[in-house]
């Protein structure tokens, strides 16, 4: 199980600049679909890469689905020389993304992010409209149901107001 609170706390306590995207963001907006991992887009600055490294170093990050025993070493250099990482950690599965199709980088997403109070932390989540755009841009058939639900959420919110 992914400890969303624990992962968000590790990143927040480490002062990492990040935005929650993907299924967890959809859940925060009202989706009822099951998602198993936390997807975040992190800022690719040198300082933030150092923070990402520090925030996760005590949580055993390892490439998800890779065979055990690889010479993988979690370090600042690892983060700096890569971009997107699909990781397992002792807090659960974490997708650490430098950029996403249809959404781009942290800098591109932050303008449309909303700040939510989650577990006593201020957490940036990709806005609903932007999340729909990102899912549309992916063009994956498996996302059709997700987009339909997100658009229905938007319609329900419009009805409420």
């Amino acid at each position: 199980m992914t400890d969303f609170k624990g992962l968000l706390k590790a990143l927040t306590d480490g002062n990492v600049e990040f935005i929650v995207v993907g299924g967890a963001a959809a859940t925060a907006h009202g989706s009822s679909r099951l998602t198993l991992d936390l997807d975040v887009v992190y800022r690719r600055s040198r300082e933030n890469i150092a923070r990402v490294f520090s925030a996760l170093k005590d949580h055993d990050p390892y490439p998800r689905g890779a065979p055990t025993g690889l010479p993988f070493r979690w370090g600042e250099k690892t983060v700096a020389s890569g971009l997107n990482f699909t990781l397992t950690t002792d807090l659960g599965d974490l997708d650490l993304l430098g950029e996403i199709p249809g959404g781009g980088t942290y800098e591109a997403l932050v303008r449309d992010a909303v700040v939510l109070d989650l577990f006593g932390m201020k957490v940036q989540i990709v806005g609903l409209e932007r999340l729909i755009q990102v899912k549309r841009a992916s063009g994956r058939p498996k996302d059709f149901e997700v987009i339909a639900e997100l658009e229905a959420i938007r319609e329900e919110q419009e009805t409420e107001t």
Partner: protein
Amino acid sequence: MDAESAVNQEADETDPVIEAYKKHVDRSLIRENLKRTPQERLERLMELQRFAEELRRAGKEKKGPGR
């Protein structure tokens, strides 16, 4: 038109495929979710994960080891 505007315009257009999928969305679930706070929604997601894991474990146990 820049790339972002193009994406925004595309998102504003109604997609008949998505409209077809939308007919099957359970709006009562959405309405119930929207009554909850974002934190409560994430807490429910974790509960759902626990339940899914329990179902997987029970399924494996039923099949027996190595099957």
